[in-house]
């Protein structure tokens, strides 16, 4: 029987294909950025707050597990304080790209930056 524990040609082709696929997607995402102007805060998929990124300030919305503090500084937005098991969204720090959302799944809160030119976005299927 063929040795199943030695890497075959098909393995290498598969790995290279997956690498190409992910590189192509990254290039697509990087090539089509859009101008950031406002940040949209959604809780449970409902828009609760629209923040102008040109002005610095601090905001607060009610997430599932308590208040989520949002801070805007120099055209970037971050989650300042929130209540969740791992604090992924506050560890993420400042975000200024429309392609990088801040996601806080335990609080069901999503902050996305919307572009000026009616949200030119990338579609990956």
């Amino acid at each position, binding site marked *: 029987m*063929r*040795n*199943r*524990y*030695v*890497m*075959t040609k*098909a*393995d290498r082709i*598969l*790995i290279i294909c*997956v*690498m190409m*696929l*992910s*590189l*192509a*997607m*990254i290039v697509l*995402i990087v090539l089509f950025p859009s101008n950031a102007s406002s940040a949209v805060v959604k809780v449970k*998929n409902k828009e609760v707050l629209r923040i102008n990124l040109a002005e610095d300030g601090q905001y607060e919305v009610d997430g599932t597990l308590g208040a989520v503090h949002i801070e805007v500084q120099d055209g970037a937005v971050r989650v300042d304080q929130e209540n969740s098991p*791992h604090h*992924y*969204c506050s*560890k*993420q720090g400042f975000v200024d790209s429309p*392609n*990088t*959302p801040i*996601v806080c*799944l335990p609080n069901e809160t*999503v902050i*996305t930056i919307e572009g000026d030119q009616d949200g030119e*976005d*990338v579609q*990956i299927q």
Partner: protein
Amino acid sequence: MSTKKSVILAFLIALGIIFQLIESFFPVVMIVPGYKIGIANIVGLFALYAYGPKELTIVCMGRIFLAALLQGTLFSVPFVLSLTGGIFSLIAMVIGFRSNVFSIYGVSVLGACFHNIGQVIAITILYQQFFMQLFLPILLALSIVAGLCIALLSTQILKRMKGRFV
């Protein structure tokens, strides 16, 4: 199914649950939210290569259901994400195994990639949001590394276990 085999499969499920629980305590450095290496897939690969696809299904599904029961997330959103990823990776791994062109490395990478693809699809459907797809390229690139590491570990375990009780 002999008693010996069912006992070994039960041990594998228990080991998988422990891997999954311990892994959830130590999140890997955050590049993408929620990214994990998937050490629990070692038991899946072990079952696949020591026995076959049927045993892989038993171990994989048993692990997902029992781990969700222990974590208290049974039939909630994290469970659905885990289940969708599990089913996708299960199907991909069985097809890769049966196609007879991939080694354990290819099967493991296939499983890891399709786990991520399944989860992104589940998130897109559940939350009706498309932002998670932007993480997919990074997740796919990382899943190659994760898949290769898991395959390497599983190979070592399988080699050492051969002839002992499998």
